C-alpha cells in the first residue's frame, strides 16, 4: 500500500524512471559496482539526460531542461533512493542544480545549466567545512574580488560528488556577507573520503586562490534556502529507500519458512513490518508535503526539518528492522540489506541530523 496522493503526470514520470532504473541498475549490479567489480558506463548519465531528461529535470526549458517542479524532483529522487542507482541524480541534478535556481542569476548560470541539462557535466554542492554544523558554517573559506573576477581559498568536505564533479558550488565569506560561488574541478585539490555508504562516493576539496564565478553575494537567505531544499531533497531519496526496505522485509517475511510456518505469520515479525509501515506512511506525508511546499515557493524552514527528521529516522529504523527480519542472511556482505543500512546511516548525518533539525525546529517555531 501507498497513500501517496499523486497527479497522473507524476505517476507517469515515476513509472518511467522506475522502469529505466530497474532495467539499468538492478540491485545485483549496484552491489557489484559498490564492490568495485563493475563500473557505471561512462555515457549512462548523458543517456539518462537525453532519454528521460533526468539531468535537467528542474532546469528551465530555456536552458535545455524539463522545467519540472521540485515536486517532480522529489518523486524521481524517491526512485533513485529505492534502487540506489549510482548516478549523480541527487548529487548533481538536485543538490548541484538547485543553487543555480535559487540564486536565479541567468547570465552567469546559463553555461552551467546548459551543460548540466545535457548531462555532459556534473556539479556538486560543497558547503560543509566540518562535521556537526547545521546549517553549515563558513569557518575559513574566503572569497576575494579583483575587479570583475573572484578567487576563493579554503576547503570543504562531506561532498556528494559521485567520484568527482566538474563544478563545485561553494560558500565563502566576502566583505558583503556570505557568497555562493562556482569553482571548476581543475582548480581544486580533491581527496576521496572513505565512505560508509558503498554506493555513493564522497570527497573533500581544498582550493587556494582558485578562480571562482559568483552566483550571489550577500546571500544569507539564498544559502538558507539552498540548505532547506537540500534537506528536503535528501529526505525524498530516503523515503524511497525506506519504501524499498519495507517491501524487501515484507517479501522475505512472506517467503521464509521456519517452524513449519511462513515467518510473517509470527506476530513478532508481522508487527515489525507493521511498525515500519506506520513510520513509512508518516514519513511519506512529511516528505511529499515538504517537496510540494517547496514547489509552490512556500517557506519550508519547518517542513524541511520535519521531512528530514521523519525520513532519516524511518530509513535508519527500517534498515535495521529489515536485517532483523532476515536473521543471519541479513547481515552477510552478499545480501543487499547492508547497502541500504549504510545509505540510511550516511544520509542521516548529512544535511542536518535529526537532533540538529529538532533544535532548528524549535528555533523556527520561536522558542
Amino acid at each position: 500500500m501507498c497513500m501517496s496522493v499523486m497527479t497522473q503526470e507524476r505517476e507517469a514520470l515515476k513509472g518511467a524512471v522506475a522502469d529505466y532504473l530497474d532495467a539499468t541498475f538492478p540491485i545485483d549490479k549496484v552491489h557489484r559496482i559498490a564492490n568495485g567489480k563493475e563500473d557505471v558506463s561512462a555515457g549512462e548519465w548523458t543517456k539518462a539526460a537525453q532519454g528521460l531528461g533526468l539531468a535537467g529535470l528542474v532546469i528551465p526549458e530555456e536552458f535545455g531542461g524539463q522545467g519540472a517542479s521540485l515536486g517532480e524532483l522529489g518523486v524521481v529522487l524517491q526512485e533513485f533512493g529505492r534502487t540506489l542507482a549510482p548516478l549523480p541524480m541527487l548529487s548533481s541534478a538536485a543538490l548541484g542544480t538547485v543553487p543555480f535556481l535559487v540564486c536565479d542569476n541567468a547570465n552567469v548560470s546559463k553555461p552551467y545549466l546548459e551543460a548540466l541539462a545535457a548531462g555532459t557535466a556534473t556539479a556538486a554542492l560543497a558547503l560543509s567545512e566540518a562535521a556537526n554544523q547545521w546549517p553549515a558554517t563558513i569557518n575559513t573559506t574566503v572569497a576575494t574580488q579583483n575587479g570583475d573576477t573572484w578567487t576563493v581559498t579554503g576547503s570543504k568536505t562531506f561532498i556528494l560528488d559521485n567520484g568527482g564533479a566538474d563544478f563545485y558550488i561553494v560558500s565563502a565569506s566576502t566583505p558583503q556577507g556570505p557568497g555562493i560561488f562556482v569553482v571548476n574541478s581543475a582548480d581544486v585539490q580533491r581527496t576521496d573520503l572513505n565512505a560508509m555508504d558503498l554506493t555513493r562516493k564522497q570527497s573533500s576539496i581544498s582550493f587556494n586562490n582558485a578562480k571562482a564565478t559568483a552566483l550571489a553575494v550577500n546571500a544569507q537567505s539564498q544559502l538558507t534556502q539552498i540548505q532547506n531544499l537540500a534537506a528536503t531533497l535528501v529526505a525524498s531519496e530516503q523515503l524511497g529507500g525506506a519504501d524499498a526496505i519495507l517491501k524487501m522485509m515484507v517479501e522475505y517475511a512472506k517467503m521464509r519458512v521456519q517452524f513449519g510456518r511462513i515467518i510473517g505469520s509470527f506476530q513478532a515479525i508481522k508487527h515489525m513490518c507493521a511498525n515500519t509501515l506506520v513510520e513509512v506512511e508518516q514519513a511519506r506525508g512529511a516528505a511529499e508535503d515538504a517537496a510540494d511546499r517547496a514547489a509552490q515557493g512556500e517557506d519550508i524552514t519547518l517542513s524541511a526539518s520535519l521531512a528530514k527528521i521523519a525520513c532519516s529516522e524511518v530509513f535508519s529504523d527500517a534498515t535495521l528492522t529489515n536485517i532483523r527480519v532476515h536473521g543471519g542472511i541479513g547481515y552477510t556482505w552478499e545480501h543487499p540489506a547492508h547497502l541500504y543500512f549504510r545509505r540510511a546511516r550516511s544520509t542521516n548525518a548529512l544535511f542536518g541530523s535529526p537532533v540538529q533539525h529538532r533544535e532548528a525546529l524549535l528555533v523556527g517555531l520561536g522558542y
Partner: protein
Amino acid sequence: MTTAIETPAELEEFRVKVRDWFSSNAQREDAQAGGEAGEVEAGETEDFLVVARNFQNKLYDSGLSGLAWPKEYGGQSLTMNHQRVFNEEASGYVMPSTPFMVTLGMCAPTILQYGTEEQRKRHIGPMLRGDEIWCQLFSEPGAGSDVAGLTTKAVRDGDEWVINGQKVWTSGAHYSNFGLIVTRTNPDVPKHKGITMFIVDMKAPGVTVRPLRQMSGASGFNEVFFDNVRLPATALVGEVDQGWTAAIGTLMNERVSIGAGGGGLGRGTGTVQFDRLAELATHTGAITDPVTRNELATIWVKERTLAILGDRMRASLKSGNAPGPEGSIAKLAGSELGSRVADMAMDLLAESGQAWTNDDEESLRWATNLLGSPGGAIAGGTPEIMRNILGERSLGLPKEPQLDRDMPFKEIRAN
C-alpha cells in the same frame, strides 16, 4: 450515498449558505475554554446532551444534516463535494456532536446497508435530526480483541427473540435510545457463522446500564446487561446467523470515524498538544533545557506528521477511494503521541505532577491526562490488533494459525 454531479455555482451557493448558518448559529472554537478535552468530558453530562441535540435539530431543520444521504430517508441527496464544502466552512467552529458520533458514524451506515426498508424509514431521519441516539453493543468481557468470540445469546421464542448476556465498553449507552447488538444465535457452527444482529430499544425491560469507571475517574463507557430482553421479529438486521459481515462493516466505519474525528487525526491540522507543552515548559523554565527542547521538537514532529496524514486521508476519501488502513496507522501513531505527551508533561511537572494543591489546576489536568493515556491506546482496538490488521490487510502477511476458525463455536476454548 449519491453520486450526483453538481455545478461550481451550486457549490458556491451552498458554501455561502453554510457560512451564514455557522456565523449565526455556532460558536467559534477559540471562544470556548477547555478545548477538546473539555468537550469530551462535557459529552457525559445531561446539559451538554441538550445543547448537542438542539444543535443537531437546528442543523437538520436547516437542511444541513445528512448531506450525502438519500432524501427518501431524511438526507439531502447532495454530493461528497457538498460535504467537503460543509467541512471546510465548519472548521474553526465548535460542533457539539460527540454524542452522535456512534449514531451517525457507525449505526446509521449499517442500517442503511443491512437494515430493512422499514428500519431505514423509521430510524435514519430521527438519527440525522439528533432525535435518536444509538449505541453499539459489540464487546463483551470475554470477547474483547476477539469480538467474534461473543456469547450473548439470542433465542427465538415464537415471533420474538430473547436476549441474555452482557456487553461492555458501550459508549453512551446511558443516554442512547437504541442499540445495535450482535448476539450468538447458533453455537453449533464456526464462530463467525452463528452471529445475528438486532436493534434493541435501550429502555426495554431487562436492559440494565451501569457506568464503567475508568482508571482516570472518567466514566464515558458502560456495562450493559440483558436479562430476558424480548425483541420483536422486526428488530432483526440482515439475516439470521449472518450478522458478522454487518458487524465488520460497522467496525470498519468505527475505525474511519475514530481516525477522522476522534482518536488519532483530530479535526485541525494544528499542533495543540505541542502548544500546550511548550507553554508548560515556558512556564516551568525548562524551555531552555536542550533535553526538553529535543523532546518537545519530537512531539511537534509527531503531531504535525499525524495532521498531514489526516489531510491526506481526507483528500483520498474525497477523491472517492475506499477507506484504507490509515485509520489503524492514525490510531497507533495517535496513541503513541498521546502517551509521549502525557509522559513529557510529567517530566516537566516533576513532583507536582503526582501531588498538587487544590488550586493547582494545571497539575490536575496533566495528571488526569496521564491517567487517561493507557485507555486511549486500548479503546477501539489495541495496538496489537492494529498491527495485525496492518500486517495482514495492508501488507498481505499471512494470519496466525487459526485454531478456532472452523470448529463449532461451542467447542472453542474460552474464558
